């Protein structure tokens, strides 16, 4: 009767959050991410005891921390992945603003931990690297600007996003952190490419990047030494790269066995930049191939899902996030096998590091949120006509 009198009760938009999330999330990518996180913990067990021993801590101090930060990262990931694209955008803009301010204030309040580059805020129990949080925020903001630029009567979004990129790259290069700067530039380039960059411009951009590389090589000793190390035909076995190569050789196909690896004792960055060498030595090529496959599946699957996406903002932001994630993994592993010049870059979700883990969790959460299945007007496509929502 009530219904007959007052009409049907208004249906609340969407069904319960969790079932809908489970139905629409990219379960394959999520499983891969969880597997990566598990591998990260496993490799942490292998690679961090030498560091703990050196710093006079209990052997699994860093593993415990990794587990704690990993848990937080997973919570962040699940939380973010339940958001709608609009909420993702809002979160990212706020996060970007905070991270940008933090980045700008680094020269005043930051610390360099004796590594020659001011990249961190130290809070006693943990340290935070703002550039890690800046990356996903930047990608989403830039995607928003570009998408807005596509709409009728919209702002010149591409130009704004480009200016933003240059400002951030300049800040990062001042630290100096050329790795993150390149990553930011690359993410923007990828989004611009997908947003429909003219081919001539892409080629010109490639030239500019090359020019900047040559300039940095000549101006920064820090940078030049790494490039030289890569270009020399013989790898000096006493360098990090030499140890890494030897570790991969030692490992062979099935590894030398759990806890039997030696490279972690020689490499200062065994738990971060060269964790893939530790994996190769202890668990062999099998483990490395598994890791590569996991990254490949996440990136390629995300990109394939984004191909169907109709909303320009979602497509661009998703592309940027997926590519930044994939390229970081690619550079890290490429360095270890000497396909790329030595560049300090962590392996997302596997390397040790609180900031990078949590920021990675947020980034991947955003990616999952953006690649969720949404109605994309497939029926309209099939019927060759557009039906308004």
């Amino acid at each position, binding site marked *: 009767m009530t219904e007959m009198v007052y009409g049907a009760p208004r249906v609340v938009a969407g069904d319960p959050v969790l079932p809908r999330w489970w139905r629409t999330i990219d379960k394959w990518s999520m499983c891969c991410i969880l597997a990566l996180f598990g591998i990260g913990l496993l490799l942490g067990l292998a690679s961090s005891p030498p560091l703990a021993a050196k710093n006079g801590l209990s052997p699994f101090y860093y593993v415990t921390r990794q587990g704690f930060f990993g848990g937080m990262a997973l919570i962040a990931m699940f939380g973010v992945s339940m958001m709608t694209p609009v909420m993702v955008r809002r979160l990212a803009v706020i996060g970007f603003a905070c991270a940008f301010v933090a980045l700008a204030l680094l020269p005043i309040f930051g610390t360099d931990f004796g590594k020659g580059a001011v990249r961190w805020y130290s809070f006693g129990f943990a340290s935070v690297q703002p550039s890690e949080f800046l990356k996903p925020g930047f990608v989403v903001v830039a995607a928003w600007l570009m998408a807005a630029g596509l709409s*009728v009567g919209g702002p010149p979004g591409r130009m704004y996003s480009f200016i933003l990129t240059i400002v951030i790259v300049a800040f990062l290069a001042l630290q100096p952190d050329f790795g993150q700067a390149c990553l930011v530039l690359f993410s923007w380039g990828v989004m611009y490419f997908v947003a429909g960059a003219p081919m001539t411009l892409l080629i010109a951009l490639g030239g500019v990047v090359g020019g900047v590389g040559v300039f940095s090589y000549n101006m920064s000793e820090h940078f030049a030494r790494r490039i030289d190390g890569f270009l020399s035909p013989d790898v000096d*076995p006493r360098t990090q790269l030499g140890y890494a190569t030897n570790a*991969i*050789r030692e490992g062979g196909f099935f590894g030398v066995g759990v806890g039997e690896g030696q490279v972690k004792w020689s490499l200062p960055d065994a738990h971060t930049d060269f964790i893939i060498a530790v994996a190769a030595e202890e668990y062999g090529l099998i483990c*490395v191939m598994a890791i*590569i496959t996991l990254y490949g599946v996440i990136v390629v699957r995300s*990109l394939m899902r984004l191909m169907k996406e109709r909303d320009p903002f979602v497509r661009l932001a998703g592309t940027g996030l997926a590519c930044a994630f994939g390229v970081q993994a690619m550079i890290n592993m490429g360095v270890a096998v000497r396909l790329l010049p030595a560049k300090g870059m962590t392996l997302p979700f596997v390397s040790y590091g609180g900031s990078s883990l949590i920021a990675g969790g947020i980034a991947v959460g955003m990616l999952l949120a953006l690649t969720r299945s949404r109605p994309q007007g497939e029926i309209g496509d099939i019927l060759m006509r557009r039906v308004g929502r």
Partner: protein
Amino acid sequence: MIRTPLRPLARILKARERGEDPGAIAAENLRLRHEAIADKSRARAEGRLLVLGAFFAVAFLTIGLRMGTIANSAPEEPRTAATGNPIIGQRADIVDRNGRILATNLETHSLYAQPQHMIDPLRAASELKAIFPELDEERLIKDFTGKRKFVWIRRQLSPEQMQQVHDIGSPALLFGPREMRLYPNGPIASHILGGASYGREDVASAEVIGVAGIERNFDSLLRDPANEGKPLQLSLDLSVQAATEEVLDGGMKLLNAKGAASVLMDIHTGEIIAMASLPDFDPNNRPQVLLTGDQSDSPLFNRAVQGVYELGSTFKIFAVAQAMELGLLNPDTMIDTKGPLTWGRFRIRDSHYLPPSMSATDIIVESSNVGTGRIAMQIGGERQRAFLTSLGLAEATPVELSEAPSGAPLLPKNWSEISTMTISFGHGISDSPLHLAAAYSSLLNGGTRVLPTLLKSDTVQQGARVVRPEVSARARSMLRQVVTRGTASMGDVEGYRVGGKTGTADKPKENGGGYYDDKVIATFASVFPADDPKYVLIVTLDEPSENSGDKPRRTAGWTAVPVAAEMIRRVAPLLGLRPQIEVSDVASVTLTSN
């Protein structure tokens, strides 16, 4: 470009006429346009995303393949010197003229420590001290507990020591393979071989470099990998060298000399068969170079090559031979020997009474300073200087030793008439025993110049002519008579027809100002066999004195000559020389044949 109007004006106007809301139409229109833009950009993005996906797939595949390739390649031992030229430890052997080894390599190990892996530094240090008493335990403890990452402990270990260090059981004590230079004959030929030490070294190998003598002179040749370890063959004869050194050492001790040198040279080829300098040293354990005082007091000093001395009357034969070459005299020409010979404030006397006039032969046989001085005056300074230069007495010897250039002769600054006279009997010019050996060889081998060499050669040197062959033969005859009836009568060795000339020179005082009257350099320069010359032997004793009589006797005839005679007696059979025994009564045997 056709601009699409923001609002579909025609439809809006119609709607207004109908009283409908024009805003809805505008919104609908905007939505449709956005749809169209989205469709267009999606169509483009689809392709580009596919490109990106392929790029990542290929990139990850490449990394995977590269990982597989590296994992599949054989592990390499880490080497300390992967870049740059590797240290070549191989060094060729040195052998004597018969192929007997003078210097070779022995595989051994060095001992080093990596203190950061040290478990019990104090125990390791004390145990090392027990094995190697020469180590400083305090120093070791300081090294092992400090910040050093690498400490050399010893350059060489014997196998027994290595086992003992191994038994300490410390993981931080490590052995590095390396080669050491071994001189199996100890001090024999020590001055010639010189010695070797380590150059660049690392854990895996060490470079052995020559520091003196032949080792230094031929360092690059011995280390040249292109040589494939072919041994370096010297002209030395190990057994002759050993016999020479033994006799010289005995003579030096009997005659209370502070040093001695001898050179045995092949008269035709210039090969040095034996060359000794005493005191000597063990090249396996070279003594330190003297930091103060006179280097010639060091056992490292090679008296035969580096030691330049006034060699006294041994030079007289050069004056007489040159005079014969110039046609100024023949062996029987009588020379005025009435002394003293006065030139300015200098007076030249003979050491013992001599008749007032003597033949040229007798001047050599009796060693007359006055006679040779007069002959030299006839020759003149210019020609004397040219002749001595042609014999190689005016420049350092070209022998293949790194020390050779330091044995440059001392010549008078101003070759005056008095210099000409004193040089004729071996004063006012300083040469090394090796110089004298080469000059005697050149003069007596038929008259062609030979250069001393330490490398084996089978060919006769075809040097420049110094004197005519008949002058050379006459000079040999004179020298033979010195032994048969002159100052070197103790030098006769039955069957080997030794010829030679003695020389006893007062040693000049170190700070200048005259000569010692109780310190001499006694030299005997000999050639054997005198009629068919094969070898030249020089024996020089530094400050000898023969004390069996009432007064110490220092002349060469009493000191250097008996030593040389004993040397020839020992060495000649080793050299394969047959003694020529004059059988006097063959005449009584009638050889018949049926």
